[in-house]
């Protein structure tokens, strides 16, 4: 009886150890390399700086580490010496002193001087970080749940404007619990493109809640605040791809709105600007065009995948508090203005946000798509002109 009991017990322990080992092995099997311009595997310090500011910050951090280490060693060598030597078990008798004005003044004034010195070291960098004047290129970064919009306001490339969201495969891998790739969760559809060695001023704002635009290699992190504009700047000293992520809690997809900045040489940047201008001219929709259902729904599927699927799911079924679109009375309603209004104004206090930043054609396309996809077979077509009319 005893032997069977203890052997089962042993088997259980062995099983447990094996499972633990398997989990650790699974962890180790996640093959990943460092991402240049993004996080390195097991990185233990700040990212390699690509701007002067980031370099200054790293320098400050290094000095602070050395000062803290020196204080740490000084203070705790005294404490541990005392702990080792001044023990009752070693027969040490306690001394009787418990006050010394001179010592108290010393260890108030010396730390005071040290912290003022630390502040003085940082002051120049604080001032430099806030100096956004004389920028060569000004770009507005608009945070919205959960993507970044970039508008080139001034400088070469003026007028370029696009949205940048997480590559949709990344989100699917995350849901499946099977991440892959060195740029997992950092790959976007349209990176922000800027020229090297130029002062880039980033103006941040937001459509819904507070987001934060951060690129560690540039030493930049600036909150994007709805209703307000703030700014920051960087001047990359080399070309390449640099990555960051949204740094202010902005709702459920907070982890899924990365930032990818592509720094190009001046010639490459000019070529990119020219290509982008051409592309935008070709893409520009004539808002008075009358579409067929099939064309509009095909266009709408793309808009849906880029903007709606994160919440409402590709299946249109929604999830939890997110309403299903498949079979939704608002979508099926013969009165098309109902769905148009929801998209233009949002509902439920912004839980479903307003999408008025999309163009009339995009809104018309996505509404037509939802009205004629999954189980929804209304046959209704919403033309861009109807959306335009509803905006007024």
């Amino acid at each position, binding site marked *: 009886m005893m032997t069977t009991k203890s052997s089962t017990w042993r088997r259980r322990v062995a099983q447990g150890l094996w499972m633990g080992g398997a989990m650790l092995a699974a962890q180790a099997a996640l093959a990943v390399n460092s991402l240049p311009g*993004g996080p390195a595997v097991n990185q233990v310090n700040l990212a390699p700086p690509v701007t002067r500011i980031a370099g200054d910050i790293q320098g400050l951090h290094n000095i602070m580490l050395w000062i803290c280490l020196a204080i740490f060693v000084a203070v705790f060598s005294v404490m541990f010496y005392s702990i080792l030597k001044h023990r009752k078990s070693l027969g040490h008798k306690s001394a009787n002193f418990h006050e010394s004005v001179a010592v108290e003044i010393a260890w108030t004034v010396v730390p005071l001087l040290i912290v*003022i010195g630390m*502040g003085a070291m*940082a002051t120049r960098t604080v001032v430099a970080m806030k100096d956004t004047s004389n920028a060569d290129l000004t770009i507005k970064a608009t945070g919205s749940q959960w993507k970044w919009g970039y508008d080139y306001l001034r400088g070469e490339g003026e007028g370029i404007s696009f949205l940048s969201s997480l590559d949709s495969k990344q989100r699917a891998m995350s849901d499946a619990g099977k991440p892959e790739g060195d740029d997992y*969760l950092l790959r976007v559809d349209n990176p922000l493109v800027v020229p090297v060695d130029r002062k880039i001023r980033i103006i941040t704002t937001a459509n819904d809640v507070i987001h934060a635009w951060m690129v560690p290699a540039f030493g930049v992190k600036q909150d994007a605040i709805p*209703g307000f504009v703030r700014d920051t700047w960087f001047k990359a000293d080399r070309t390449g791809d640099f990555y960051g992520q949204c740094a202010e809690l902005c709702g459920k997809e907070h982890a899924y709105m990365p930032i990818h900045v592509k720094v190009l040489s001046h010639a490459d940047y000019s070529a990119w600007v020219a290509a982008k201008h051409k592309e935008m001219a070709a893409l520009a929709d004539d808002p008075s065009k009358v579409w067929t259902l099939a064309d509009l729904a095909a266009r709408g599927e793309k808009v849906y995948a880029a903007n709606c699927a994160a919440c409402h799911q590709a299946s249109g079924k929604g999830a939890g508090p997110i309403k299903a679109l498949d079979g939704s009375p608002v979508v099926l309603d013969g009165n098309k203005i109902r769905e148009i209004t929801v998209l233009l104004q949002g509902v439920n206090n912004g839980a479903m946000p307003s999408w008025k930043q999309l163009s009339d054609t995009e809104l018309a396309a996505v509404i037509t798509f939802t009205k004629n996809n999954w189980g929804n077979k209304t046959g209704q077509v919403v033309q861009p002109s109807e959306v335009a009319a509803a905006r007024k």
Partner: protein
Amino acid sequence: MSAVLPHPGDHAHDDHHAQPHGWRRWLFATNHKDIGTMYLLFSFTMFMIGGVLALLIRSELFQPGLQFVNPELFNQFTTMHGLIMVFGAIMPAFVGFANWMIPLQIGASDMAFARMNNLSFWLLIPAALMLAGSFFMPGGAPAAGWTIYAPLTMQMGPSMDAGIFALHILGASSIMGSINIIVTILNMRAPGMTLMKMPLFAWTWLITAFLLIAVMPVLAGAITMTLTDRHFGTSFFNPAGGGDPIMYQHIFWFFGHPEVYIMILPAFGIISAIVPAFARKKLFGYASMVYATASIAILSFIVWAHHMYTTGMPVTGQLFFMYATMLIAVPTGVKIFNWIATMWKGSMTFETPMLWAVGFIFVFTMGGFTGLILAMAPIDIQLQDTYYVVAHFHYVLVAGSLYAMFAGVYYWGPKWTGVMYSETRGKIHFWGSLIFFNITFFPMHFLGLAGMPRRYADYPMQFADFNMWATIGAFGFGLMQVYFFLFVVLPMMRGQGAPAPQKPWEGAEGLEWEVPSPAPWHTFENPPKLDATATRVVG
């Protein structure tokens, strides 16, 4: 615990104030010791709930990719972990210590307002139920982070209102508790117990209570404005109506930064009692400790915006808050130096309370260093909202406040229960907690420096290994606290263990050691006559 408290049969007026038994004793409690016990048990329960939430968070973060929860639920976990630990665990636990120890330390018979004391405890229960129960409301618990920043709060479901109501009630409870503590300390000290002879735990709580009264109404204002923005058409913080989301942050952190010191100053008081007791030497620089505590409290009101460097303040604002924040290192440093000077040339022994106290000094100081690094505005802009900040505040709140409370439980537990804990078990608890704490939180510094943002349900794979270690450490740390409850707390409450002498610690000083162990239900009914140092009762 009720079983071990003997009935004090030798009091003449006993038949008028018979000790109630059964549930009446607790529901109608007016005795500071009973209320203190309830506070401590309540906060331990909340600590366990918050701990389970922490382990759920860590489980999800064990590997990259979503394994257990969706990001929405994950945000609910991080939010509720923070709210429950701050408002349900740490703050009430210190009030529990205050209830038990302040009357004993200053020679008072009870707290000044015994019935208000009862109310301030029992308010916690509906608040805690509402807070924890918000998980079962439509849309789940609040998911806007413990700082509940506007305008994300506008998007939350009805549980946000429940959370706001719960915080209001907890705030009212805290204010009542603070008034009680201030009046008790200022009016009920035994003759001869002048303010500058008072034990530092009473001093730190006196200052903490003033901080609480100053800032809890500020929090109440911030969350009331959130509530009216949500339901009554105001636009304090809602940019759609011309409001300013950043104003919320200013108001919140005007509460939030003093709140940080509310959670650490009483811990300084506990450490200041324990270090001299086990060094068998008087506390070095008593007066400077009092002044340092007061300086920290005053400075805490002018540093709030260091939580907001990345919101885009004017350069003068950044510089002011950077220098003001760095100043706090000075009085905090004075405290560390004083404790070490107290240990210097002492005659030290290392029973469990002293181990926790030394552990506190060592690990809390590391949190202090990262605080200094974060105070530097340019570095903070790199590290704001990353795991570096998470590491920093767990070093000061877990290794700071929580370690000090453990030290206090081992130090005063024999006085509360009348039995000694097992020294071996105490040491297992200490070393296990210390090691697992560092496995959990030390790698988070690296994650933050590498740029991993906090409140992320999933992360790039380069961050995988350190997250794995943090999760392993967190489970170990959690197990150590279950061990603490089952093998230290429960046996003491059941009276199992060697009977505690009146003064179990050779070097301990103070009036709490002048009454028997366990402390009788009524103590110091008549003001005691004290010796010149106000540490002994004479005649």
